[in-house]
């Protein structure tokens, strides 16, 4: 048919003479979505909802069990003109309502249809459990009566007074945390300690229960006020990444006409949770550290903070934030419709399908849907990869099974469906060649871009900055310090005395020796004059004295230390002061070439062997603490032999670096597996200024490893990650 909405349908005669009507129990309520009126039908027997647009509602409304469908349709056409449902739409509407059990007519039950729907539903649910193993739901308890009983007592919490009080509470909670940020952050390390884990879990269950009851009560509260039911019949357990947490089914919120109320129901969980967290914050701030109360209060703050920010508020996954967003932008069923919108764009513009099904006509809503579709798909991939690695780290087989299921569910099945759609889907019958062309072209382009066009490959490794030459200066002899060069002064080799100490005993001994020498020389001179044979013996004594003197002199010399090479004198300890006694061999400080630095990088097993053999390769460098500054270096040497002794403990995991260190060494400077040391010389900046590096800094070096297609690089990286993590 060449029309968008053909008036007539071939199936019309099948329903034309029926006289159906809505079941008397069905409740309907009116809602506004983006300027359009919609009606929500609720089946109280199973709390299921169906949404019908204005024209459809008018059509259904006129069916009273006495008029035939055909009569009603004609009346609708007269009243509504263009907006009236077409025959096809009316048939579809009737079919859907009948399938949802909302319609009654003088017909025997369609037993076969009911069985078929049941089989289909069960199959879908089972499939859902397997696929959504991560988020499986198990209903446990019907809290409706409980909520009914207590809502009178707690309902006010969701009114203006409640919100005002809540704001005050939240303010107090925040104020009590103010100024304790450091403590708050520091204590996170304790949260995941094995001793706290059971408590953490207990706190979480309690807090989540409060959260869910918040939803439940809020739903009940608004539902009662609107006389729209607000029934909450399911409270159960949901597995969130294999961790059971409570959940509640608040889909009754659908029947509320105000989007703010619906959004509030979505937010009520966090609302309740934050109230508890605020109380916990006050307790935490006013209790002594180390007590159980303190720890529990901290757990509550931690859970409320983390789960609220990371999960509940995030609209990209189907938690509270999603429902709040979808209510606020008046776009129900956001997830599915955003996908449909994406499909629509592809079908319409890439495949050239003539009239693809459009999820919405509103331009702004289309923009919302497309943005949402793209963001949520990216996030989904990110989240699933994260979860996979998280679980695979803990439980390898479960992780692998989940990965297999995820690959089947998210790659194989959609790919199969897409292939089916592309090859035999009826929608493409007229544009099949174009659709195939576009798809194959895109795939080919991707394969070429990813698989054949070489892209510069880079990898990074951590290194530490070191002066090219460094010498520890030790005290040469015992003595008291007399004077000392200030730290960080530049020194010239052999000239500047780094520090001078004195040894009075040695000095007096020297003076004594000099005196004795002079005496001996004087005596010798006189002995020569007297020409006694003694003179010869004296010469020996003079010689001995000379030697002694020379020894003392050299010892004295040792009291003064001079720079062994040009560099900077770095004083070892700051409290070295004049008059302090030094023992021989005591470390005093360093002389190092601080303006002539080099970098020693520890490249691991994956990177090391792939580094270019020749020296002179240009390397990009960034200091760990100054990631904004980029420097350029040159490889001067690659030590190809595997080493395990790290250039600095700072590169090992124990010292905050990236390399795993061997656990039997307390110093933490032995790498767990051998690495390759790379020496890099830093080039001066463009204006000739010396690089702003300091000895001891940690630096990330980025190596150019030649060019390879992205697919090859990705595959290598994946294998590397798997091997590293799971030794496979």
């Amino acid at each position: 048919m060449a029309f968008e909405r053909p008036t007539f349908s071939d199936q019309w005669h099948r329903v034309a003479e029926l006289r159906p009507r809505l079941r008397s129990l069905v409740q309907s309520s009116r809602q506004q979505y983006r300027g359009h009126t919609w009606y929500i039908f609720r089946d109280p027997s199973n709390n299921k909802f169906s949404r019908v647009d204005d024209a459809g509602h008018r059509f259904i409304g006129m069916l009273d069990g006495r008029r035939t469908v055909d009569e009603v349709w004609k009346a609708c056409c007269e009243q509504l003109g263009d907006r009236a449902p077409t025959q096809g739409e009316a048939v579809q509407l009737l079919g859907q309502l009948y399938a949802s059990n909302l319609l009654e007519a003088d017909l025997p039950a369609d037993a076969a249809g009911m069985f078929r729907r049941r089989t289909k539903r069960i199959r879908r649910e089972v499939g859902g459990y397997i696929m959504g193993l991560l988020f499986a739901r198990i209903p446990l308890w019907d809290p409706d009566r409980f909520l009914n009983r207590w809502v009178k007592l707690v309902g006010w919490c969701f009114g203006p007074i409640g919100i005002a009080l809540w704001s005050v509470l939240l303010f107090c909670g925040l104020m009590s945390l103010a100024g304790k940020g450091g403590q708050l952050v520091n204590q996170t390390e304790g949260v995941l300690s094995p001793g706290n884990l059971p408590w953490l879990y207990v706190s979480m269950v309690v807090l989540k229960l409060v959260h869910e009851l918040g939803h439940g009560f809020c739903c009940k509260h608004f539902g009662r006020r609107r006389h729209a039911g607000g029934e909450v019949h399911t409270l159960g357990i949901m597995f969130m990444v294999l961790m059971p947490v409570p959940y509640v089914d608040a889909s009754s919120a659908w029947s509320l006409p105000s989007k703010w109320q619906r959004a509030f129901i979505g937010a009520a969980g966090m609302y309740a949770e934050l109230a508890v967290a605020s109380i916990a914050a006050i307790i935490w701030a006013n209790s002594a550290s180390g007590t159980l109360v303190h720890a529990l209060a901290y757990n509550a703050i931690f859970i409320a903070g983390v789960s609220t920010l990371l999960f509940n508020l995030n609209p990209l996954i189907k938690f509270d934030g999603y429902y709040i967003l979808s209510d606020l932008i008046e776009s129900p069923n956001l997830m599915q419709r955003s996908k449909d919108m994406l499909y629509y764009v592809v079908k319409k513009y890439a495949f050239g399908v003539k009239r693809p099904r459009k999820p919405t006509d509103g331009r702004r809503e289309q923009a919302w849907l497309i943005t949402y579709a793209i963001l949520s798909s990216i996030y989904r991939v990110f989240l699933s990869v994260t979860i996979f690695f998280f679980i695979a780290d803990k439980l390898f087989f479960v992780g692998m099974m989940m990965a297999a299921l995820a690959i089947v569910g998210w790659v194989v099945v959609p790919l199969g469906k897409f292939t089916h759609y592309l090859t035999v889907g009826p929608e493409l019958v007229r544009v099949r060649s174009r659709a195939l062309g576009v798809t194959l072209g895109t795939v080919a382009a991707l394969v070429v871009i990813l698989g054949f066009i070489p892209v510069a490959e880079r990898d990074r490794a951590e290194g530490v900055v070191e002066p090219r030459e460094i010498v520890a200066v030790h005290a040469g002899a015992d003595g008291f310090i007399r004077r000392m060069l200030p730290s960080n002064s530049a020194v010239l080799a052999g000239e500047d005395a780094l520090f001078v100490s004195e040894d009075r005993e040695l000095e007096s001994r020297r003076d004594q020796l000099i005196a004795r020498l002079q005496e001996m020389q004087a005596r010798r001179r006189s002995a020569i004059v007297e020409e006694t044979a003694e003179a010869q013996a004296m010469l020996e004594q003079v010689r001995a004295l000379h030697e002694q003197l020379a020894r003392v002199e050299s010892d004295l010399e040792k009291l003064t230390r001079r720079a062994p090479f040009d560099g900077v004198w770095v004083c070892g300890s700051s409290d070295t002061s004049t008059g302090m006694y030094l023992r021989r061999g005591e470390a005093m400080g360093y002389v190092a070439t601080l303006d002539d630095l080099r970098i020693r990088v520890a490249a691991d097993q994956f990177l090391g062997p792939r580094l270019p053999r020749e020296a002179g390769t240009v390397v990009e460098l960034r200091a760990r603490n100054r990631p904004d500054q980029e420097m350029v270096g040159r490889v001067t040497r690659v030590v190809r032999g595997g080493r395990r002794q790290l250039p600095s403990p700072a590169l090992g995991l124990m010292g905050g670096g990236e390399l795993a260190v061997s656990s039997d060494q307390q110093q933490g400077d032995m790498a767990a597996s051998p690495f390759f040391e790379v020496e890099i010389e830093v080039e001066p900046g463009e204006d000739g200024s010396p690089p702003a590096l300091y000895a001891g800094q940690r630096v990330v070096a980025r190596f150019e490893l030649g060019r390879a297609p992205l697919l090859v690089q990705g595959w290598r990286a994946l294998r590397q990650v798997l091997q590293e993590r799971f030794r496979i």
Partner: protein
Amino acid sequence: MDHVRLRQPGESRVRQDAGSPFASAQAWRASLSHQPLKPPPTGADAAWDTVMSHILCRVPRRRRVLRRARQVVALEGEVAGYGSDRLVDEADRLRTVFRRRRETPEELTLAAAIIREAARRRLGMMPYPVQVAAGLAMIDGRLVEMATGEGKTLSAAIPAVVLGMRGRGCHIITANDYLAQRDAETMAPLYEAFGLSVAHVVGETPPDQRQAAYAADITYTTNKEVAADFLRDRVAMGYNPGVNASLLASLGGAHLRQGHTVMRGLECAIIDEADAILIDEAGTPLILSSQGENTDEKERYQHALQLADRLERGRDYRVDLKHREVDLTHAGRRRLTEITADMTGIWRGSRIREELVTQALTARLLFLCDQHYVIQEDKVVIVDESTGRLMPDRTWRHGLHQVIEVKEGLDPSPAQTTLASISFQKFFRLYRRLAGMTGTAWEARQEFQQTYRLSTVRVPTHRPCVRKHLAPVMCSGVDDKNARIIEDVKEYHALGRPVLLGTRNVDSSMALSRLLTEAGLAHEVLNAVHHEHEAKIIAGAGQRGAVTVATNMAGRGTDIKLGPGVAERGGLAVIAAEFNDDRRIDRQLFGRAGRQGDPGAARAYVCPYDDLLKRHGRALSVKLAARFFGPRAAVAIAQARARRLARHARKSVLRSDVWSEQFLGFVHPDH
């Protein structure tokens, strides 16, 4: 887009014989036939199904049937020696075997030999081995492809006897009322020899004779009649949710409504010209309707046509020849809003307005007089594309028929209210056993396999076929083509050979007839408008020097016998002025030449302005084929594309059948 409409006859229904024990069995069987169809497989099952159908339709079966036919023929001498008493005894014995369905292959062979002998004695016709082979294949539920003039009527009688002896009725579906009556009468002596009753149901058969006719062991009828009776029964039975639900309801004390039904369930059918019925007409819904009220819609359609005339092609609308659709552009919609600004009533709403105007444009541009329809007695009568015949029962749907009538200045026929409808495709899938025969099945064998679970067997001709296929001639334009055709006709005429000139529509047959008159060639014209002397024209078409211009009417089902002396001069020459959308239709036309081992020749002419190439010639593949491999390849590819398109249309009929069955399962099953 069109469909067959049947008027619901008045209340002159068969009175039900309440006391007959048959009544409940009949209701039971009928209920079984009204069970919803099993939905076609989905997902991986569907892929498997397609793969299997591709494999199964390629399984060679020909040699096996021919071997079995030789076994039957080998019994000839033995059976010929039987006295008539012996023959009757053997037949009686076999009947009980067949009724119990416990026959062995040997018994089947013997039965075929006896049928053959009985045919010789009663009809004076001895089935050839190839006819026996065809019959045996049909007993197995196969679709047999056998050439024209090979005696399909006699071939069908062999399975009819066997299936008739099973005692559950056997419908033989023929192409038209005349054939149903003729075949039933011709074959009656053979069936009588086996104690089988035979009857026929044609359009004129009064309702009270139909029940008896369907109760006969063998019923000759047409597809239209049998499907219509089925629909009427369904309406008469009222709401019948199928046998399971009926049984459930009767447990609860409710009575199974039997109504006044005429049929006793759909057991087995042997379909003549199976491809025409199961493929070409498959998507056409048969609709049982009652006269609706006479509304004054003429003015509305006139308005729509006037509005359509004020739009400009290309700017306001686009014509999609391939899919036979008209689409309004944005500019067209705006223009329509402007020019209807001061109109009232239904013209206020854009949807209905655009729909009406689109329909008017479709009627103007895509439905042409003397091509898609003719006007007879102030009525628009549809011409069937594949058979070239008038279809007075058919109408186009959703007001299109009325628009076309208004376009031609006629009064629109009153709107009709649908009571029940079924597509032929669905109807024939309801039979428990199908078999069929046709001259052209091979091209669609995969579809037969997948849709109807019918595998195709190609039976060789009794005498080798010596028809010469000449290469198609590519012409630059219509005038060039017509000139060459006339030259060709002249050449054959000079040799004294009869010529059959086949055209696709009434229009071009008239054009060629004019040219022949100008060239001074005496000829006959056979088309939907000139069909009064069809039998006479066909009888004369094989005579020496005859020239016949005909639409596809002269294709399927016509048997052109050669006059004396013609065979020596080279036999009948068939010239196709244009290729059809389906290769099978072309083969039907070519098959008129070279019948039963006679000599003959066939040649086709192509030009870029032919309907086929106009609709499908824009595809790159067709252009490339025309450029590098010549017209034959180009036509083959264009025909493949057309076939795919048609096949898709049939598939969507199937899909919508399934959809409505599942989605509207709560209402009457496909009423």
